[in-house]
């Protein structure tokens, strides 16, 4: 009996946790088919209208496009800057390394309200108008730290002898970087970019402080929560979830197949 419990405890507990994680998403998905009027609070019947017309509610799609734009720009900047920092911190020794290290970690130890409030204070101080640029800057700050942490783990686990081998085989430092270092770091960089995009896309608190009249998808939902969230928001939330799932799972399946084919040869 004890052994049975020991054997099944982890799978059952872990499985239930995944269910817990997915319950609200299932709810969002189901209610995306609700024939809701203005508020999507109770079930009024099945319809495909919301999916056929996802931009039907005012501002839903505009805020989505805004979020995607912010996410892409912030991710690209954060990934490039963060990867450079990770490389610099792991591979080189220089004077202000510990200071730099601290400056990278601190944003992670700062709650979003504080980060948002301080950036707002800075933008007010500088007299900048709040909008796309200020949101991108604020997202870059917190995404960059995550990128550094993720990529740095990858850089530290990279065998320096591979780079020596490249140099030994007539590759100039530049060729070594592009032919050996970068391809080996790529999985870490992609993972970091994905995480960064996800966090930028999902951020509300920092955005709320620094967006002015600019609306992002989470901000749109938060604002409409008081009046009633249109079912179209559920459509977009579900669609984005499924899209993310589909993209990653497809790439996983392709990689899995390729491994299998290679192993069989």
């Amino acid at each position, binding site marked *: 009996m004890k052994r049975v419990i020991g054997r099944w405890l982890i799978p059952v507990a872990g499985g239930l946790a995944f269910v817990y994680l997915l319950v609200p998403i299932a709810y969002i998905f189901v209610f995306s088919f609700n024939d809701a009027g203005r508020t999507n609070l109770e079930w009024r019947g099945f319809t495909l209208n919301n999916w056929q017309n996802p931009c039907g509610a005012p501002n839903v799609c505009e805020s989505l496009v805004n979020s995607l734009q912010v996410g892409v720009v912030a991710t690209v900047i954060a990934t490039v800057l963060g990867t450079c920092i990770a490389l610099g911190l792991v591979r080189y020794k220089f004077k202000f390394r510990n200071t730099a290290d601290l400056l990278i970690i601190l944003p992670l130890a700062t709650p979003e309200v504080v980060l948002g409030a301080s950036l707002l204070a800075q933008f007010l101080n500088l007299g900048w108008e709040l909008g796309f640029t200020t949101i991108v800057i604020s997202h870059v700050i917190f995404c960059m730290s995550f990128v550094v942490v993720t990529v740095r783990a990858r850089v530290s686990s990279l065998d320096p002898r591979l780079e020596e081998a490249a140099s*030994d085989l007539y*590759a100039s430092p530049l060729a070594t970087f592009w032919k050996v270092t970068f391809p080996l770091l790529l999985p870490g960089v992609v993972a970091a970019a994905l995480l960064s995009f996800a966090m930028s896309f999902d951020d509300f608190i920092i955005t709320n402080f620094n967006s002015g009249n600019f609306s992002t998808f989470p901000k749109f939902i938060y604002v409409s929560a008081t009046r009633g969230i249109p079912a179209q928001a559920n459509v977009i939330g579900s669609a984005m979830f499924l899209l993310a799932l589909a993209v990653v799972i497809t790439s996983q399946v392709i990689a899995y197949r390729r491994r299998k084919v290679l192993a069989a040869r």
Partner: protein
Amino acid sequence: MTTVTTNKSEPGTTTSSGADLHLQNISKRFVDFTAVDDLTLTVPSGTFFALLGPSGCGKTTTLRMIAGLEQPTSGSISIGGQDVTKLPSFQRQVNTVFQSYALFPHMSVLDNVAFGLKRKRVKDTLQRAKAALAMVELEHMASRKPTQLSGGQQQRVALARALVNRPAVLLLDEPLGALDMKLRRQMQVELKSIQTEVGLTFIHVTHDQEEAMTMADTVAVMNKGKIEQMGAPRDLYELPKTAFVANFLGKSNLMYGTVLEDLGDAVAVDASGHRLVMPKNRAVAHSGAAVVGVRPEKMRVMTLEAEYSPSANMLTGTVLDASFTGVSTEYLVDVPGIGTLATFSQNMGQAPAQRGETVRMTWEPEFSFGLDGNEKATEGKDAL
């Protein structure tokens, strides 16, 4: 396939027969210790040269300096007469087979082998890479990833990846260290035959004395950043010049003593009351304190009654331990005043001596070798 293109050698690029390597007063000092200490060394072209020593003796640092992966603190390195000390590794006509192979995990086996050729922008890259893979009998694995190969196969890919560039000098950093015993022996033979075939200068770093002796034309024994002794494997084994070499390269019995009399070609040494003779041309010191050495297999073990040649050196002692290995019986014998000596006798059907028995050990004086009296007899004994 035509090989017309191969020997169009631009100056200093493709050298098919290897080149002389010369290290002049090379030192490498790190902040807290000296890895290589004023080393001067010439390796003639086409030689299979082994750098043998325990870990930390500076052999790998020496190799890395030749490869250009490490800068010497002082001294110079030249290859084929050209000073390459300041040249970065990617501009040196030197290739390395790394200890962990360092195969690029994200590239296929063929791309790994073609890597150096592509960087040098050589023509027929793929054909040459395939030919190199064929040489190590792995052409059927060309499209695999390195992780899908066994250790021995990875090792051969690493070798092909280095050899395909026809470097002036090929460096091997403990290339067989990760392989099991059987594979090791097999690869030793293969490496040696490939070297004979391509005729390049091979520099092989290892801590395995057997490996160094079976493969190399010349062995240099390194200790504490310096070369202790260098020569053909047989010369080193038969006539070690220091206690370190005597102990690290095989086993030796070393006995402290004082030179008693000059016998013309030989000297007689008093070792705690025992008179031992050694030829002058095999001894470092001809007067004063000296250490007399003899290899265990050069000694004969016999009963006290047995006859022995009157010219032979003779010691008597008590058997501390006798272990039968089939081919022979190995003994540890305690000789009063001298200490414990190791010896063995080949299994010729005789009854082995028992523990506690008193035995006589003899050897011909010409098998003795003499070291400096200040040598520490245990130097290099447990070094690995």
